[in-house]
């Protein structure tokens, strides 16, 4: 049976972006270093994918200082959460189709 992949969100085609959104769905906010350690990827890779999600307005960025060290945290926006939910629903539909 033909499976329809058009409903999947293109922004989440990339595994790293999908993982970042998963993290931000269950945590109020997450900082750059902790994300990097969790995903085990390079600074550059993480930064470019965060930028892509920010461009879609799926996440918001909060910059602050802890002592003198800059601390950047990320949160999922309402748009981002909705997009992620829709993406999950689409995944669910696809898997159901595969089974039938």
């Amino acid at each position, binding site marked *: 049976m033909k499976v329809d992949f058009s409903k999947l969100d293109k922004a989440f085609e990339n595994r790293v972006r999908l993982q970042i959104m998963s993290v931000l769905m269950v945590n109020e906010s*997450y*900082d750059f270093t902790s994300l990097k350690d969790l995903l085990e990827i390079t600074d550059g890779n993480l930064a470019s994918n965060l930028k892509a999600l920010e461009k879609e307005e799926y996440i918001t960025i909060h910059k602050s200082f802890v002592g003198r060290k800059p601390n950047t945290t990320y949160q999922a926006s309402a748009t981002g959460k909705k997009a992620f939910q829709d993406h999950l629903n689409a995944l669910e539909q696809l*898997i159901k189709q*595969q089974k039938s």
Partner: protein
Amino acid sequence: MSEEQKLHDDLASIRSMMERSSKFISLSGLSGVLAGVYALIGAWLAYSILYPHGDFGGQREYLTNGVFDQDSIPDLLFTPIITQLIFIALAVLVASLTTGLALTRRNAKKKGQQLWGKTSKALLFQMTVPLLTGGAFIVVMLLKGYFGIVSPACLAFYGLALVGASAFTFNDVKYLGISEIILALFAAVMPGYGLLFWALGFGVLHIIYGAVMHFKYDR
């Protein structure tokens, strides 16, 4: 890689990230079992100090009488027996923490989770607040002569710490916490059996839940 395979990998990765980013899943079940064993050894040592003639189960009378004459408290607190008991308690604590740390570090390495990361910090903070509160509370009550409160208060505050911390680790920890609290309440209505309840709570319950968690998550 087929598209179907990618779907399943995507889902697996979502699930893993949600869990690993919010929960410290490297807690070692085996260290729970060992902590329980140490506690039982400690309780046995304490028992042989408190009841040298082996009259187990005999309620200790002075514990049930509640408050003493304020002047006699220092004499009761600073006896060789109490010093020995404190030493045993500290030894059990240090041995449990050391084993727990070593085994959890090994587990974290195996599961690719940071030992000192966002989740373990949250877990530790959640535990520290009730434990320090409980510790200070017990010291104050001891100085006031309420010896009978030690065992139920240890169990109750430890249980509360576990229930609070369970949000950041395996759900089983919540049930261990609730069990400790129930035991604490029984210990409170039956003064004089503190050591028995302490051994059940810190020894037997740790062994049971540690074994369950070991077989569920570590293998």
